[in-house]
């Protein structure tokens, strides 16, 4: 029992008030108990001032006998919080009055957990409750406060939602009966809050929905992490590949190139040691020519694989040199027209190789068939395209008549189209020939730097393009 004034006067006597002992019900109280379906005042044996005491009890509503009506009446000295299935039903702090909760709609068939969190300010302590359940079959169930309730230690976590008790939870202690001094025989008042309705569970609150959303989030997160990791790895792999290409190019060049150069020089020297007419000298001379050609071929392979050479400027200079060297063996003069200040834009390996082969083909055709005295090679950059023109004022041909399979033109055009470029041939009999190649600087598949497809087909494009470096 707590009355503020009383406490103020006797705060030091708190320990003089141990637990009360239950007495016998008076006939008058017995009637009240019967009518309201109440139990006894319960508390824990470890009485303390300012004490919280938690009570726990599970009840089973039969599946085949639904609840018609369930009313729970409760009070506590000094206050309580009432929970059903971890849901807070209500609270009260007037030990003189009863509160009557209608739980009809909450007691669905199955197991339910009732929990009371009681608090005592000082002196007599207790929780009194009783729930009367009327079942559809007409049977009546009374759940009352008695020693079947368990006292939950204050250290227990999530005790409201526990469906089974802990082994160490001790039974509650009956500390008094209805009507026992200082408690009432008849409650001063019975308060009736509105009937409690079950929580409306929207579909987005259901476990499966939340679970699904969560798993989608996790999957999405995992996927993006995976993609990011893969992108990072691929970028790294591309960098490594470039570095490796440059290293291989350098190694080939340094070791093999130096050895070949030495071979050329030594055989030149050896050659001079034989008389001019000897067959050995002839052989050495041939040997020199072959070794020089090998050395030159090696330079071209190195050029093709060296990532440092992936620029338009380099391509243009290489193409000019190639054309000059190629035509120096013929009677045809080579004329160049290269846009001044050719930028060092990145020029994809696959595209530059395809374009190189096509231009070689065009030069070869012109040298073989044009009969011209001069071939013009023109290289320009227009926007994101490079334009290479091979032009002569020679015999020319009728494109209609020559068209079709069997000549290199078809292959040439197909190859360029695959790489996102175009090839236009203008010619007429006696009107010379003009072949124009227009290529994008970047391969269409790799344009924009990043595509999902490139991630999923990791680097197949590269290997496909690189396997046949023939260094022509």
């Amino acid at each position, binding site marked *: 029992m707590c009355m503020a004034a009383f406490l103020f006067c006797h705060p030091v006597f708190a320990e003089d008030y141990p637990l009360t002992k239950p007495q016998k019900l008076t006939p008058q109280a017995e009637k009240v108990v019967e009518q309201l379906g109440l139990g006894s005042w319960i508390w824990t044996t470890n009485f303390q001032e300012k004490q919280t005491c938690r009570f726990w009890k599970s009840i089973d509503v039969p599946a085949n006998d639904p609840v018609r009506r369930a009313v729970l009446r409760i009070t506590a000295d000094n206050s309580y919080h009432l929970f059903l299935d971890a849901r807070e039903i209500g609270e009260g702090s007037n030990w003189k009055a009863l509160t009557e909760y209608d739980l009809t709609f909450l007691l669905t068939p199955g197991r339910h957990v009732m929990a009371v969190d009681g608090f005592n300010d000082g002196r007599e302590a207790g929780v009194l409750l009783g729930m009367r359940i009327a079942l559809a079959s007409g049977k009546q169930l009374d759940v009352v406060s008695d020693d079947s309730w368990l006292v939950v230690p204050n250290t227990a976590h999530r005790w409201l939602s526990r469906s089974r008790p802990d082994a160490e939870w001790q039974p509650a202690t009956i500390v008094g009966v209805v009507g026992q001094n200082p408690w009432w025989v008849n409650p001063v008042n019975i308060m009736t809050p509105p009937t409690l309705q079950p929580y409306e569970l929207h579909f987005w609150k259901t476990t499966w929905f939340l679970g699904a959303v969560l798993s989608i989030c996790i999957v999405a997160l995992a996927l993006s992490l995976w993609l990011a990791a893969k992108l990072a790895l691929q970028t790294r792999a591309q960098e490594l590949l470039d570095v490796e290409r440059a290293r291989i190019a350098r190694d080939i060049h340094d070791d093999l190139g*130096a050895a070949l150069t030495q071979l*050329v*020089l030594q055989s*030149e*020297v050896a050659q001079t040691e034989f008389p001019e007419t000897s067959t050995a000298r002839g052989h050495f001379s041939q040997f020199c020519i072959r070794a020089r050609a090998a050395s030159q071929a090696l330079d071209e392979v190195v050029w093709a694989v060296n990532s440092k050479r992936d620029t338009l400027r380099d391509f243009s200079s290489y193409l000019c040199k190639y054309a000059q060297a190629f035509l120096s063996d013929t009677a045809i003069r080579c004329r*160049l027209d290269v846009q001044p200040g050719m930028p060092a834009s990145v020029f994809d390996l696959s595209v530059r190789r395809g374009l190189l082969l096509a231009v070689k083909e065009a030069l070869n055709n012109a040298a073989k068939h044009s009969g011209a005295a001069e071939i013009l090679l023109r290289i320009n950059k227009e926007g994101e395209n490079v334009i290479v023109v091979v032009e002569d004022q020679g015999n020319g041909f009728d494109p209609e008549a020559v068209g079709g399979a069997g000549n290199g033109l078809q292959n040439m055009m197909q190859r360029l189209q695959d790489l996102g470029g175009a090839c236009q041939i203008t010619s007429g009999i006696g009107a010379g020939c003009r072949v124009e190649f227009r290529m994008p600087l970047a391969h269409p598949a790799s344009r924009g730097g990043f595509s999902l497809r490139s991630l999923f087909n990791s680097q197949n494009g590269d290997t496909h393009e690189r396997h046949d470096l023939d260094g022509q």
Partner: protein
Amino acid sequence: MTPHRVETKAPQFSTESPLKIALVEDKRDVRESWAKLINSFPDFICMCKCASGEDALRTLPPLQPDVILMDIFLPRMSGIECTTRLKNELPRTPIVMLTASDDDDLVFVALQAGADGYLLKRTTPADLRSALIDVLTGGAPMSSEIARRVVESFRQKPRGHDDNIRLTAREEETLMLLTKGYSNKEIADRLGVSIETVRSHLKHIYEKMHVQSRAGAVARYMSGNHVGQS
């Protein structure tokens, strides 16, 4: 680079006083082979073989060779740095770079650094001989690629009215024709001058390039910020 074509019959030098060639090359076998090749020409003699740039800086200035053949890659002091330093000691001696690969970036840096010509190491003895004669009688041949870079470098740096580093109209014309793929002979025909005149234009272009770049590109190269190997 296309192999250096012999434009005209090379002038004959008196065998009584063969021209003195110095060689700077770190690999012994290559050095010996080059020396033998040079010595096989009646009008040339390989007077000195240096194994490193440091060696060359010590040995060559007192010997006063007629031409220096310099490997572009040397351990420690590079051929390019060695060229710059030798030019200070022997400003009149032409230096020809020897490169294993056809790398315009590198060759251009070497030319700016003071080289007067360049040769691929796999060049034929006949081309070697004509290149040596070219560099002694005028400017060494210039490929269209190098000519293009020279044009660009002169356009990028207009240096006021200093005639030493400005190209004359004829020199510029010569360069433009080179970039278009004309040979020295074709240029001579087109400009109505002798091939020797074209070569002397080239010689002046090389010289002006050295002057022009002494401050810029070389300083960059010395500080290590240069184009690397191929």
